Every structure is written in C-alpha cells, then in structure tokens.
C-alpha cells in the first residue's frame, strides 16, 4: 500500500511535468507541423540560466522568472533564424534541423557551463508528510509543480480562447493562407507560438531540475517521454497532451517502482508503438484519419 501510494503520487507529479513538455511540443506541431526535438536542450539551457543566477546569489524566484523569459527569447530566435527557412519544406529536413540544434545546444552548454553534475535548489520542501501510518509522498515541491503547470495551462487556455492575439494565432495555425489574406501577420504569430512553447518547455525543465541534479543531457529522456505523451493525446490536441502526460507519468512510475528504473525508456517505447499501431490518432481519436 505504502509503495503503491508513493509510486502513484510520484508518477502524478512527474506526469504534470511531462504534460507541460508535451504541451510545448503540441503547440509547435499545431502551428508549424514540426516536432521540435531541440525543445529538451532549449529547456536545459534556460535552466542553466536560472542556476547561474541563483548561484550568483539572487533569489530562486528571480532565477525562475529569468529562465522563463530566456525561454521566450530563445524560442523566438530559434524560430526566426533557423526554422523559418525549412517551414513547409520536406519534413525530414525539419527533423534533421531540430536534431542539429539539439547537438549544438548540448555542446554549447557543456562548453559554457561545464558537463559535471550540479545540484539545483528547490523553493519548497522535498519531504512528504505523515498521515497516521501512511507516508504521503506528495512533497511541497510536488504541489508547487502541479500548481505551476495548472496555472500555465489556464493562462494558455485563456490566451487562445478569450484574446484577439490567441484568435490570430489559432487562425495562422489553422490556415496560414486565409489568415494572411485576412490581415494576420502569420510569420509573427508563428514566432510567438514558438516563443510560448519554449516558455512552457522551460517551465518543465525547471520543475524537473528542482531539488535534483542538472547536467547538459538531463532533459534528453524527457523529450522522448514528452513526445510519447503528445502522441498518446494525438499530437494535435493540447488537452490530449495533458491527459497523455499524466497517464504516461503514472505508468512509467509504476514500471520504475515495480520492475526496474532501467526499463522506463523501454516501457515508453512499447507504449508509443502500441499507440501508433492501434490508435495512430491518439487515445481520443474517432475518425480513421491517416496521419502517421
């Protein structure tokens, strides 16, 4: 019982982080039909930005906000400089480009910040609380993780539902040509979309790092889990990405707790394969649309 509860709660917390990361992938996929594999090292870089600031003596929260802003800027720059030329061209080129960026950012971080493990602080406690006989593994930082992801999701929903800007972004993603004819500056919307996605990605980077160790490849497996979560949800639906992230977080946590942490990546591969073969449109798809 104790182990079951701990595993489930750990999985749920992790699930929220995967959900955020999957959401970042989905945002970019919807607007540009590119899966941004470089999302992981981008989040890693912004986490390092926070770490450098915190090590220099500023408060955790200043570092936190700085990392999110850095994510926003990095996302915009990456879209404008590197991705714009391959948008709408062969999908293999886009995949290779994001992988190239993956390697570049990785190496850059190792050169600038060093490749050793560094510990990253957490603003809240890392211990669960006791309820009678049971130890509840929901830590202060875990609650913060869940709240932070929920807040960001709420803000995104509000942006896309209730603002003019959100409407324009949806229009550009839905049909760039028509949106352009109606006077929407589509290029600017795409840049903004990438910037927002990178911000959400940075958030998940910060949440994974909190209270644990940071090194240049600490986000590498997260990009796989985020991708699997996004595919679980259909790769096109933000809500699906969130549900996919939670499902994946809990399932992987059980694999890690009851089978072996070495097989977590293999389990995610198996889940991905099953979804793609049985329900390629994601768990919530109805129509038999060919996308894969």
């Amino acid at each position, binding site marked *: 019982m104790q182990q079951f509860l701990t595993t489930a709660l750990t999985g749920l917390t992790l699930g929220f982080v995967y959900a955020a990361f999957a959401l970042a992938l989905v945002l970019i996929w919807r607007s540009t039909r590119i*899966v941004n594999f470089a999302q992981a090292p981008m989040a890693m870089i912004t986490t390092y930005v926070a770490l450098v600031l915190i090590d220099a003596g500023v408060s955790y929260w200043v570092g936190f906000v700085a990392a999110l802003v850095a994510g926003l800027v990095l996302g915009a720059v990456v879209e404008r400089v590197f991705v714009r030329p391959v948008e709408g061209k062969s999908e293999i080129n886009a995949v*290779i480009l994001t992988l190239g960026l*993956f*390697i570049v950012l990785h190496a850059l971080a190792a050169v600038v910040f060093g490749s050793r493990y560094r510990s990253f602080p957490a603003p809240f406690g890392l211990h669960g609380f006791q309820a009678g006989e049971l130890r509840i593994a929901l830590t202060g930082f875990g609650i913060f993780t869940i709240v932070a992801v929920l807040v960001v999701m709420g803000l995104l929903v509000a942006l896309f539902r209730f603002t003019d800007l959100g409407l324009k972004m949806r229009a550009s993603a839905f049909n760039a040509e028509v949106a352009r004819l109606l006077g929407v500056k589509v290029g600017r919307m795409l840049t903004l979309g990438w910037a927002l996605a990178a911000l959400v990605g940075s958030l998940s980077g910060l949440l994974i790092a909190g209270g644990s160790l940071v090194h240049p490849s600490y986000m590498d497996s997260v990009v*796989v889990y985020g991708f699997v979560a996004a595919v679980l949800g259909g790769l096109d639906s933000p809500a699906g990405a969130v549900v996919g992230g939670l499902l994946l977080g809990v399932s992987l946590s059980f694999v890690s707790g009851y089978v072996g942490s070495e097989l977590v990546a293999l389990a995610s591969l198996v889940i991905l394969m099953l979804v793609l073969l049985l329900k390629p449109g994601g768990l919530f798809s109805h129509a038999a649309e060919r996308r894969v």
Partner: protein
Amino acid sequence: MASLPLPLAKVGRSTLWQSTLWRHLLLAVAGLVVVVLVLEGTSDFRNAQLAAMAYLGIAAGGLTVLTGLNGQISLGHGAFMAIGAYTTALLYQGTEPVLPVLGVLLAATLVALVVGAAVGVAAARLHGPYLAGATLALAIAVPGIALFFDGVLGGEQGLNVRLPEVPGWFADILFFLTAHDVSSSKYVAYIGWLSLIVTFVLLANLSRSRVGRIWRAVRDDEVAAEIAGINLGRARVLAFLVSAACAGLAGAVMAMAVRLTAPSGFTLTLSLTLLTAVVLGGLGSLLGALIGAALLTFLPQVVTGVGADLGLSDLQSAELTPLVYGLTMVLVILLAPAGIVGSVRGWWRSRAEKAHKPA
C-alpha cells in the same frame, strides 16, 4: 550515380564499365588496393582510427540507404549497433570463442536483422517526425536493457571482447604481398575495411537494382508507387531491415576494435552522430557516407587541437567536436541540403551542361 548525357556515356566507355556489377566490383578491387596500401603505410594508432572510420562508414552506409533512398529517418541506429556489439561480445569472449570471426560478424548482422525486422514492421507505418520520435525512443531504451540484465550483459561495466588472433593464412597472404607481419590491431582494421567493402558493393548493387528503384519510387511519391503495384509496407520494411543489418555489422566491428561493449558506448550522441555523417556527405550517397565517416573520425583531433590553442580546458575542447557536428548539420540543411557529394555533383552537372550547350 551521376547520369551523364547519353552520347558521352557511350563514347570511350568499355562494356565492362557499363555493367553495374562489374563496375562496382572493379571499384571494390581498387578500394581494396587502396586499403592495403594505406593500412600498411600507417602506424598502429592510425590503424585503430581507420578501424573506427570503417565501422562508422558501414553504419552510415546503411543509414544513408534508408534515409536517402527510402526517405525513412532513423535516430536509432546506435541501438542496432549496440545489438550487434553485444552479440559479438557474447559470442566472442574468453579463450575459446564459440565462432570464428566471420561467423561472429554474420551472427551479429543476423541478430540486428531480426530485431530490425520487428522494429521495421512497426516503423513502416510511420513517417517523418513520428518515425524520428519512435527511433529516438529506441536509441534511449536499448542501453537500459543492458543495465537491467546486468548478469548476462555486464551492466554498467559492459563486456570485454577478445582480440581476434590473426589466422595463419591471412598473415601468409599479407606477408607475401607486403613483406610485413600483421599485428592484431591491424588485423581488426582489415576486418573492418573488408566488411565495409563487401557491404558497400552489396548496397551499391541493391540501390541500382529493381529494389533500389522501388525504394526511390516509394520515397518520391507514395501514391504513384502504390498505383504502380508496389507494396509500400514491404518496401519500407526491407529498407529498414537492410539498414539495421548494416548497423549490426558495424556494431560487431566496433566491439572488436574497441574490445569493450558497454552502454556508455551507445548513447544518443552516437545515433545523432551517424545522422550527421549521412547528412554531411549527402543523403543517399555511399561515397558521402564514407566522407562523413572520415570527418567523424578525424575531425575531433583537429577541433580539440584548435580548442586547446584557444585556451579552453581539455573537457571544454572535447565538447567542441559535437558543436562543430551540430553546426555543420544545421548549416548543411539551411545552405546545401544535398550535402557535400550532392552539391559537388550538382555543380559538376551544371558545368557539363554549360559546356555542351551549342555556342
């Protein structure tokens, strides 16, 4: 292959050169001569580097066929190399190896082929980013298997691989040709390069054959290919299979050259590095794959040297190499998507066309 204007191809070309098989065999023999000359003329250290170039070349050759000819991308070829390498390590350790070297190489290829078939059946239904994501998961998942079954597969420390003994007949032939004795590390380099030549001849023939044409047709237009009676799934699975088998063979050579098979040797970086080699050389070109492999092997030394000159620490300059890989990958995609070989060919062709235009 560069398609020259027809009249030019007919003039001054023997029929031997026109036959695909004979042309490839002639090139293979020429390659063999170059290999013997280079391996005999260089030090043991260079031989070890050349062995590394051989296994990277084999894996890159397989990948370039998959990505360039069939339009499928794989970020998981490091995983297939791991499968080949672990097969080799299991079959070829201790004093009494189960199989001779050739048997081990074939077994490693076969195991990778079987796993590749399983993955390929699933992969054939995916394309673009979906396939990339799935194979990325494969690359991350496979090292975990070695850690989980640490009783058999050695866990973090990995498995040691025997240094192959030079067989008497091989030493005799080489002594007859070159009047040199063959050291074990030189023998491994020979194993690597012979494997590379055999693989490349097979791949080159395959790409010029009916199968290669089918792969290209599937890459260029799925619908048209299907209307022409091509079974898309079968073509894709076959391409994946061939490619995985090459990676398995590469892994086997790698295990013999490095003499150790451990999870740390098969990181995501290896898979991405192979992709760099293929993109750099030009997708679909075997020559490009070889050039890419050469750059992967010899560039690190140069770049690390430059880094040291710039006053960076050893650790930092070691990271300059992937930085250069990544930057070239991005620049190639943005500026010259055809890669080195493709760009040179394009330039050559446009020049030839200009020269043939009537004044």
